[in-house]
């Protein structure tokens, strides 16, 4: 659970009564919301490392792609999939 997963910012939208800018970030076929508070300069189209709903760093596309493929390969993307509430 300590790994951050790279994804691409699709759009940036207000959330929480308009108080907060959240990004919709695409990870392969999955889209999740992430806070951009830690990467204030990130733009639509940028790749960010996201950990538990917060983007913690901007990375280049090549780095994002290879890390994502690796995480998929070792089955570390489970965190992204909505848990069936057991």
């Amino acid at each position, binding site marked *: *659970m*300590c790994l951050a997963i790279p994804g691409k910012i699709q759009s940036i939208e207000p959330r*929480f009564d308009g108080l907060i800018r959240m990004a919709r970030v695409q990870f392969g076929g999955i889209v999740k919301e992430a806070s951009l508070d830690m990467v204030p300069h990130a733009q639509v189209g940028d790749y960010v*490392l996201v950990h538990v709903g*917060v983007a913690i760093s901007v990375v280049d596309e090549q780095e994002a792609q290879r890390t994502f493929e690796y995480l998929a390969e070792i089955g570390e993307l489970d*965190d992204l999939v909505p848990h069936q509430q057991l």
Partner: protein
Amino acid sequence: MKYLAEYRAPEVVEGYLREIRKTVTRPWTIMEVCGGQTHSLVKNGLLNLLPPEVQMIHGPGCPVCVTPLHLIDKAVFLAQERGVILCSFGDMIRVPGSRRSLLEAKAAGADVRILYSPLEAVKLAQENPNREVVFFAVGFETTAPANALSVQYARQLGLTNYSILASHVLVPPAIQAVMADPETHIQGFLAAGHVCTIMGLDQYAPLAAQYGVPVVVTGFEPADLLHGILLTLKQLENGECRLDNQYTRVVKPEGNPQARQVIDQVFEVVDREWRGVGVIPQSGWDVRPELAAFNANLKFEVPQQRAAECPDCIAGQVLKGIKKPHQCSQFGTRCTPLNPLGAPMVSSEGACAAYYHYAQASLAVAEVG
């Protein structure tokens, strides 16, 4: 177990292995601190590819594993007896408390929810103004910005029904605790890349100097890990002890200043109990006193019962790298991932669980071959 040709960049992996074999002239013991790295080393079979002189020891870097039993009991109590909506990450929900896990509490009717992010818990609090929502906030430095932000968002939204049960732990004091143990035989450290993405490097150079050990900030892919191990071995063979950064493509020396600021605004450094290890001074974060309204530990009165750990579990020695999981008398017999006696068998990042799955895989290979 993987064959070399199956790696995405086999030539890179083979190149580092060749360099490692060329560099090593005598035995060395290196600890990787981060559970994600343990998982990757074991899952990719890298431990079998390293020359026998290189011993990797798995450190305490699994937040789920080091969360004390009494905090899990507290979370179970809040969910069962106080009727709160208790949320946390999937791994945490499965860890056995002294009587039951959160998952078992849920099966018995408690409102326990597995969430991807603490920010989702803030949303839950907003949508359920008549219920208390508690997020069981475990993690190392990587997870702290999210947990801290959840408190800031809740405050900005004026929510009075959101709080966190913090069990935050820090990597540098854990390294100090490992080195301070007279039984330790660790000679070098791989530090965790994503932790340093947040915190930067400035805490690590003093550790390398103080204990005379190389510390190499390392990523978690096979090529990263082998590169980190190689950089550590080069220093060891040359009698050096510095901080190196293998993961420069992600880790900046200053870390993430915004994240560090939010962490500072919400958390303060406190003494923290590590399951299996005991209290390590100044080794964790808890919610600052001025934000006490968001601290579930203060908000809810919970009868303090100190539960005893299973006496046969040697998790403390495993977490400090003094013993390997399979040296535990319970390993794989009474203690398995389905029926864990201690936390390192629960989380996939725990050393015992990683060894359990890995041993099963090696056995399968041995049977076939």
